[in-house]
């Protein structure tokens, strides 16, 4: 079957034969919504581009590792958070294992922000938004801000003195915007589910979008360099 899904050998139902060795296809048409989506996805990001085995020669600096370090730290944050969730809200106060997992979660969050801020610095100095990559920058910056919010709800969910102080102080800022009427930082029940479910989901979706955009657009070329490696005087190559 071609990437456009136009190779048809008949429908599965109605007794039409299935093309040997291949998936069922429909006679005529474009395979409906499924075929259309498949065609668009594989055209935009074929496997060789989604998982490339080569990269531009200019990708040769340790600065390029900050992004993957951020992703790896995020994976540890999520894994340790899942592990803590297994025991519930308060078990980490009373068991050695629970407390150790809390420690892993705290330090992986510190690592996540450590690498993410370095990644942001690096991408700023590289003007990584050039060449139709503004959306990559935007998704990255929004991911950072949503991550701060997610960490904030994490601090609120600790059920200890730190959580009490943070909640009673933060309420004034949030209440002053009117949002406190619906997003109550003093309500452990609400903050906990935002921390465990909603905000990680948002961070996850944003990070996936960010990484897909990097794969779609590729790593930004050096300032003043065109897509073929030659010097460029195109404004898009400079800012």
């Amino acid at each position, binding site marked *: 079957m071609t990437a456009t899904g136009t190779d048809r050998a008949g429908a599965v139902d109605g007794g039409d034969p299935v093309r040997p060795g291949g998936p069922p296809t429909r006679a005529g048409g474009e395979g409906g919504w499924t075929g259309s989506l498949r065609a668009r996805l594989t055209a935009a990001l074929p496997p060789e*581009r989604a998982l*490339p085995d*080569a990269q531009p*020669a200019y990708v*040769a*600096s*340790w*600065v390029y*590792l*900050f992004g993957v370090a951020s992703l790896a730290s995020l994976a540890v944050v999520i894994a340790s958070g899942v592990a803590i969730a297994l025991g519930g809200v308060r078990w980490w106060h009373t068991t*050695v294992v629970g*407390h150790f997992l809390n420690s892993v979660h705290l330090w992986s969050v*510190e690592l996540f922000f*450590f690498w993410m*801020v*370095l990644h942001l*610095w*690096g991408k700023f100095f590289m003007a990584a938004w050039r060449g139709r990559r503004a959306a990559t920058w935007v998704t990255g910056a929004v991911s950072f801000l949503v991550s701060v919010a997610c960490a904030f709800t994490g601090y609120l969910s600790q059920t200890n003195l730190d959580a009490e102080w943070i909640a009673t102080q933060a309420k004034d800022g949030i209440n002053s915007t009117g949002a406190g009427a619906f997003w109550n930082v003093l309500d452990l029940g609400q903050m906990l589910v935002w921390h465990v479910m909603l905000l990680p989901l948002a961070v996850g979706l944003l990070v996936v979008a960010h990484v897909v955009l990097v794969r779609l657009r590729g790593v930004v070329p050096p300032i003043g360099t065109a897509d073929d490696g030659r010097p460029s005087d195109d404004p898009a190559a400079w800012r």
Partner: protein
Amino acid sequence: MVLPFPVPPVVGLLLNGDGYYLHWGFFRMSLANLVVVVLMIVVFVAALLAPFPHGRRRSTPPGERS
């Protein structure tokens, strides 16, 4: 807080209830935060300056677009 294994003395120092704080005029920062920020700057500068290993270079054949 009980740990299941013996810890080095530095950990006891770090686990005590009173942190170390530095003041510059009206600005205050914990030693721990300062260490993290300094480490970030050091790592960033090191990443910029450290030589990067160069493996084999593969050139794209003429006419073939990635």
